[in-house]
């Protein structure tokens, strides 16, 4: 019966009508028999029967399913209404679509990067470990030395196990073309510390990293699919990596994003027993014991003392200065904060969009007062009207949500295209169930949100008042005006907050780009040439390769200077070491001084335009067999020779300081200057070389082929990688802040446009509503200027209200941005002032046009409305 009533509703309804018609006919016949005229008889029958529409409705209610029927009705009615006012629908759906789309796109990134858990077992127990040295290159993240690792493993009680790794690279010639592979050299316990299993084969065992153990390698999922087409037979095969044979023992699972770097190969780090403290090249990964907090571990770490080889200039028993961070912080870095800020920005945009649509709905509901009062008079219950209106707003929101999802799909594609490669875990980004759930939630909540305001308005209307008002154009009631004003102030204040945040980040980015790196970046071509394999096993082989290379490239046309170095500004450095100055005893209980050791060929300083502050540059006379020399940077000179001249002093094992040069950033543009010590390539050796060519032409890339040919003529198997201009390296270094600044700025622009459109709409509507009032004023002799002032005054009050609230909100909230800002205070007053000006200006401009329209009101025309 119930189900029949649902599925055969039309027939049921038809039968009910028949039944009632029969009833009326019977009564009518009786009335006629009693002597009434047919017309009289019908009216009398209908009177006796009552409101037949209501009766039908109440009867249908007894069948059940009315709620469903009513929703269908409401939906149909809502759709018809939306179709009937395409302008309103288009604007509302587009506004919501933009808001929801931006929100969904950012959420899909947040979902992948922040919400999906890291691909490790109990990632919250994992911490990264570095040295922390105030006066050391690398600052808080100075690498560990092998001796640190051994010491620490032996002494600590907070950690279940400690592993370490080092980034590396291999020249792989096994395929069709020589290729340089990004690799990580890890200790044997690395994967057991992370809690990662191989998807095929096995991961490393502790015995794999003993010196002399067989060389074994793990392949990343990506590399395995790319170069071996996912062939399982690859297990047990040997790969020729840089002239040595490595046995493939396993394939790692996909999505093992340890850092942003895409690592293709994992090999073991075979640490020899250290004979001295340095060099520092390892990053530690440790797993906290159960029930040990990071805080407790930190306290314990600060009590440990060095015991392992103290070497010539480190005292035994010196205090460690370790630094530990949760692994999620290492992998996500400031991306977490940047994403949360973006998410907040996207939500603000959505709020502004919702406010705008609420305004539109309010205006529309004012126009529908008559309809609503009529429906109430005909017996519609208040709750039914609320449901009808809710259905309409939800319909809009869901349509907006659908459009938003489409926009988000496109938006995510664009995001992934413009996002820098250094963004972690981007491979996981996509629109999945959780993202769609979020969109649905956001759409419905938005629908309720912007639907609420007009609802409250409409259903509170008293019938008489509405029917009275609907007859003629009157001025808005004070209450309704308050609603409009509240909405405008809200969206303006939200826009202020977004604009200020965008302003701060833009200014910070601008400063970051203009930071003095210490070198001149124009017209320099750079590339990496890792010298690996049997051809470069011995240091003498390097000694014969580099001079030939430099000599040949120097003779190419339009080459001004050419240099080889182990580091490049702004953020490529591989090697830092502790050092001591001859004649100065090491200070007990203080960490040793550590500096970047930069190995350069003689022309390096000339090629990069690094200024000489004292003494001399390296020359051809600083050969392998001449007295060892070194050059220090200004920061090194200031920190370690505050009271005397560094020239002539000797650095233990490095030779005499012959020059002081300007500071150069090797650890990122945002980092402070770190001490650096330069050594001539003839007296120290590096296998990780960058080749840099300063040219005379504006387009240094035009020399690539010539340079490659020269390299090939020296060694046809040498892979060349990271080819590009120095300027592009700088651009990559700021890609991350550029990305987030661009996004925030676009959101802010969108917010500004939406807020201005909203303000315009409200003022414009208010002028229309007040045409009558303005007409009377002008008829009574008010000059046009005072009318202009009246309307502009309203707008100014709203703008000032919005700006003040926005400023207060910004003062309270921009502190959260602090760690994303470079050299800009979170309450930077020029940014605050500028934003205030821009927003007030545009808001007033948005009011000006309706205000001008108001002054053109023809009093006669306006009064004739009466």
């Amino acid at each position, binding site marked *: 019966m119930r189900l029949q009533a649902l599925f055969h509703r039309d027939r049921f309804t038809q039968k*009910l009508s028949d039944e009632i018609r029969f*009833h009326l006919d019977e009564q009518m016949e009786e009335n006629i028999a009693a002597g009434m005229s047919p017309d009289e008889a019908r009216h009398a029958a209908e009177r006796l029967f*009552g409101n037949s529409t209501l*009766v*039908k409705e109440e009867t249908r209610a*007894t069948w059940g399913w009315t709620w469903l029927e009513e929703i269908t009705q409401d939906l149909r009615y809502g759709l018809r209404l939306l179709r009937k006012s395409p302008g309103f629908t288009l604007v509302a759906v587009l506004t919501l679509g933009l808001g929801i789309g931006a929100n969904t796109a950012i959420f899909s990134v947040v979902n992948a990067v922040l919400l999906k858990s890291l691909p490790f077992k109990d990632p919250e127990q994992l911490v990264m470990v570095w040295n922390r040295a105030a006066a050391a290159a690398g600052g808080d993240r100075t690498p560990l030395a092998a001796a640190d690792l051994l010491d620490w493993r032996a002494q600590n009680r907070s950690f279940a196990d400690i592993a370490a790794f080092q980034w590396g690279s291999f020249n792989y010639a096994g395929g069709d073309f020589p290729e340089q592979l990004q690799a990580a050299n890890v200790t044997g316990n690395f994967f057991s510390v992370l809690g990662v299993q191989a998807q095929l084969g096995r991961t490393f065992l502790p015995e794999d990293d003993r010196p002399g153990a067989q060389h074994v390698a793990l392949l990343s999922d990506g590399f395995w699919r790319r170069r071996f087409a996912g062939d399982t037979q690859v297990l047990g095969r040997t790969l020729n990596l840089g002239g040595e044979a490595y046995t493939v023992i396993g394939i790692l699972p996909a999505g093992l994003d340890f850092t942003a770097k895409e690592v293709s190969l994992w090999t073991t780090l075979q640490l020899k027993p250290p004979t001295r403290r340095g060099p520092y090249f390892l990053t530690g990964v440790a797993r906290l014991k159960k029930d040990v907090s990071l805080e407790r571990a930190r306290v314990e770490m600060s009590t440990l003392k060095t015991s392992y080889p103290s070497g010539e200039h480190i005292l035994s028993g010196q205090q460690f200065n370790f630094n530990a961070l949760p692994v999620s912080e290492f992998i996500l870095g400031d991306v977490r904060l940047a994403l949360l800020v973006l998410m907040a920005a996207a939500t603000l945009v959505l709020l502004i969009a919702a406010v705008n649509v609420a305004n539109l709905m309010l205006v529309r509901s004012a126009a529908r007062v008559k309809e609503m009062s009529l429906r109430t008079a005909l017996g519609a219950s208040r709750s039914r009207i609320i449901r009808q209106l809710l259905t309409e707003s939800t319909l809009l929101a869901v349509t907006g949500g659908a459009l938003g999802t489409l926009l988000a799909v496109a938006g995510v594609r664009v995001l992934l295209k413009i996002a820098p490669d250094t963004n972690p875990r981007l491979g996981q980004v996509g629109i999945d169930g959780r993202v769609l759930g979020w969109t649905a939630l956001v759409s419905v909540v938005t629908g309720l949100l912007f639907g609420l305001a007009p609802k409250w308005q409409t259903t509170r209307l008293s019938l008489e008042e509405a029917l009275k008002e609907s007859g003629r154009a009157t001025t808005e009631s004070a209450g309704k005006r308050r609603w409009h004003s509240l909405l405008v102030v809200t969206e303006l204040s939200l826009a202020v907050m977004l604009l200020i945040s965008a302003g701060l980040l833009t200014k910070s980015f601008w400063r970051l780009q203009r930071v003095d790196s210490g070198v001149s970046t124009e017209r320099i071509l750079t590339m990496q040439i890792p010298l690996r394999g049997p051809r470069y096993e011995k240091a003498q082989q390097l000694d014969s390769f580099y001079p030939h290379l430099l000599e040949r490239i120097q003779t190419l046309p339009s080459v001004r200077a050419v240099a080889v170095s182990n580091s490049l500004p702004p953020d490529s450095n591989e090697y830092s070491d502790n050092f001591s100055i001859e004649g100065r005893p090491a200070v007990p209980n203080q960490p040793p001084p550590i500096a970047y050791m930069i190995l350069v060929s003689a022309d390096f300083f000339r090629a990069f335009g690094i200024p000489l502050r004292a003494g001399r540059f390296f020359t051809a006379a600083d050969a392998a067999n001449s007295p060892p020399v070194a050059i220090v940077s200004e920061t090194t000179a200031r920190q370690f020779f505050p009271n005397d001249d560094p020239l002539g002093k000797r650095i233990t094992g490095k030779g005499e300081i012959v020059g002081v040069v300007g500071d150069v950033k090797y650890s990122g543009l945002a980092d402070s200057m770190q001490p650096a010590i330069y050594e001539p390539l003839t007296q120290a050796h590096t296998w990780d070389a960058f080749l840099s060519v300063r040219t005379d032409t504006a387009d240094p890339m035009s020399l690539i082929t010539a340079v490659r040919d020269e390299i090939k003529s020296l060694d046809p198997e040498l892979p060349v990688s990271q080819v590009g201009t120095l300027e592009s390296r700088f651009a990559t270094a700021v890609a991350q802040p550029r990305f987030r600044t661009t996004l925030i700025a676009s959101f802010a622009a969108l917010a500004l446009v939406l807020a201005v459109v909203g303000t315009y709409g409200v003022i414009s509507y208010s002028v229309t509503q007040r045409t009558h009032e303005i007409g009377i004023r002008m008829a009574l002799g008010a000059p046009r200027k005072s009318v202009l002032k009246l309307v502009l005054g309203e707008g100014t009050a709203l703008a000032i209200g919005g700006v003040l609230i926005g400023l207060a909100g910004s003062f309270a909230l921009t502190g959260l941005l602090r760690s994303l800002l470079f050299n800009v205070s979170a309450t930077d007053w020029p940014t605050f002032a500028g934003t205030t000006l821009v927003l007030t200006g545009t808001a007033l401009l948005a009011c000006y046009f309706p205000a001008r329209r108001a002054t053109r009101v023809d009093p006669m025309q306006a009064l004739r409305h009466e």
Partner: protein
Amino acid sequence: MGKPSDLVQGTLDLLILKTISLEPKHGWAIAKRIQQISNEVLQVQQGSLYPALHRLEQRAWIKAKWAETETGRQAKFYSLTATGRAQLEKEAANWSRLSGAINLVVEST
């Protein structure tokens, strides 16, 4: 004109059940009959009969059938089901008890 709510809750149901207990009737006839028997005192607004009829039908206390009237028109005739008959007895007994009690109170002193 009294609204259904002016009748004691459930009374309309009782009246309907009683009215069709002898023979099937259509809506108009039920209304007419209630009016006549109560000596024109109970003026049910005729329309309000239908939600009640349909509700009773949903509860399966009464059943309906389309059939021809004496004048040859199609009308929906309602008749009691077995549950309906049992319900009628129960409600009628209830009603007598209640009205008797009220009478006692009203007519005392």
